[in-house]
């Protein structure tokens, strides 16, 4: 599949934002139980950052649409379409986060709003992941691992962002959150690695033989009916050399998972700037990971577009 930057930015930004909210909700819960002391400003800043990231993600996602101003229509088919469900859950999540942050700013009871936002964050992970997981034609995506990985990776990046934020605003919390980010990053790396391993071993069920219904071991395409390419050649092929795809995959593994985890494991009490730097590196790795997620996917329609002429 062609990797669309709109979707890459949206899924990574929103995923990290949801993870940030969930990590700060954990802090909020711990504080309500009297386990930790934190200033309200941490939650307010967290809510603002979450909303900003979701907002930027939404703008990025709108670039994916041919008619962004008709986007509101996408709420219609929530009974059948995961995309429709996401379009409903995302604004609800943002509203709950705004209410949670506002309640903290006004010193009002906020925990219920936080719990609601947390539930919606988890629901949003499932919706985003299932948009891809529900495409049966693309077997690399049609697995429970897809929503699981969207959730785990989002939690990891959110925990890392939360630790960086805490290092600046509530320093005593930072080491604990960094520890959490380390565990989340390792779990996410394992699950994502397993998904890659699985996808490398998929044997295609749909072949050129079933695509045109001719049972012969040797079929060669001579013409695809157009000389200059088409939507089919632009949308479903990444068109990048295999070396680049491999390099981006290594970048995803190293920047996104291995290096941040190694740094978090090596430094017991990381400073704010270090954590911010680690998050930036991790986020760059996630962009590469999401790019690879698209290039990994082989669409069966590509069987019909193997030779120009």
């Amino acid at each position, binding site marked *: *599949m062609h990797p669309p930057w709109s979707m890459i930015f949206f899924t990574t930004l929103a995923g990290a934002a949801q993870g940030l909210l969930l990590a700060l909700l954990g802090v909020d819960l711990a504080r309500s139980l009297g386990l930790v002391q934190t200033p309200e400003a941490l939650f307010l800043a967290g809510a603002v950052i979450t909303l900003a990231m979701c907002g930027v993600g939404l703008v990025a996602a709108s670039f*994916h*649409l*041919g*008619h*962004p101003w*008709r*986007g509101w*229509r*996408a*709420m*219609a*088919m929530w009974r*059948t*379409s*995961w*995309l*429709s469900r996401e*379009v409903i859950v995302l604004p609800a999540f943002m509203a709950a986060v705004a209410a949670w942050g506002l309640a903290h700013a006004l010193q009002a009871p906020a925990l219920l709003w936080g719990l609601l936002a947390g539930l919606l964050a988890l629901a949003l992970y499932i919706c985003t992941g299932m*948009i891809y997981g*529900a*495409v*049966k*034609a*693309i077997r690399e995506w049609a697995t429970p691992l897809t929503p699981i990985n969207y959730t785990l990776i989002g939690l990891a990046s959110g925990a890392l962002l939360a630790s960086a934020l805490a290092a600046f605003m509530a320093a005593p919390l930072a080491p604990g959150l960094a520890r959490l980010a380390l565990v989340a990053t390792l779990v996410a790396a394992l699950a994502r690695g397993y998904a890659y391993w699985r996808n490398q071993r998929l044997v295609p*069920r*749909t072949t*050129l033989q*079933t*695509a*045109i*219904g*001719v049972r*012969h071991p*040797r*079929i*060669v*395409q*001579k*013409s*695809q*009916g*157009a*000389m*200059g*390419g*088409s*939507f*089919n050649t632009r*949308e*479903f092929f990444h068109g990048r050399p295999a070396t680049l795809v491999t390099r981006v995959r290594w970048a995803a593994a190293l920047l996104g998972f291995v290096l941040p985890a190694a740094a978090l494991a090596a430094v017991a009490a990381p400073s704010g700037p270090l954590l911010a730097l680690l998050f930036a590196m991790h986020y760059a790795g996630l962009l590469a990971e999401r790019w690879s997620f698209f290039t990994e996917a082989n*669409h*069966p*329609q*590509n069987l*019909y*577009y193997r030779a120009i002429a």
Partner: protein
Amino acid sequence: MTQLALVIDLNVCVGCHACVTSCKEWNSSGSAGPLLDWNADGPDPTGTFFNRVQTFEVGEFPNTQTVHFPKSCLHCEDPPCVPVCPTGASYKRAEDGIVLVDYDKCIGCKYCAWACPYGVRELDEKRQVMTKCTLCVDRITDLTLPPAERKPSCVMACPTQARLFGDVHDPESEVSVAIRERGGYPLMPEQGTQPANHYLPRRRTEAHTDPVQVVREHNPLRVDGREPALQPPLSADWEH
């Protein structure tokens, strides 16, 4: 319940692309259009088509067959493109089973194209909405046309009558009989989409002459009681 569909006979398709051009012509000027092109006269022309003819070579030289393969929306009985559409722009008509796109509702998210395993939905780059074969719904339901012309444009255009059109749920329709008696098959059955369109396979065609037909009693080659030799050269037998 009616399910309109095309049945395409690969045995007689000669790959002339008449269905492609007539489809483009009708759907550029009909109610579904326009189907726009980019760089139509430039070095890298591209555009939106509902129907394309592709060519495959089967086998290894010299034992090869050239298969011309027209490809358009198969109007699946269980279309994966419909439930994924977030706006309801993509739908399957209950009355005749045609899968259509409401261009005024489409937001151009391309999700339906991802869900379709056949790659028969094309985003029109200028209008930024998803487009696809409508089975010429504006022709086949147009009561002002003579009944014989209430067929998709591609079916009307095909010079070898490789394309049949009808209701595959009616067991006595032309298309159902063709599927039943000529080995009609669906594409990618493993995808579980139950395509309504079917394809008829290539058939081996050869002239067969039984030796008995050559030597039978009233064979004009029997001259003066002399039987023509079966082995060549047959013509040498005429020399007296």
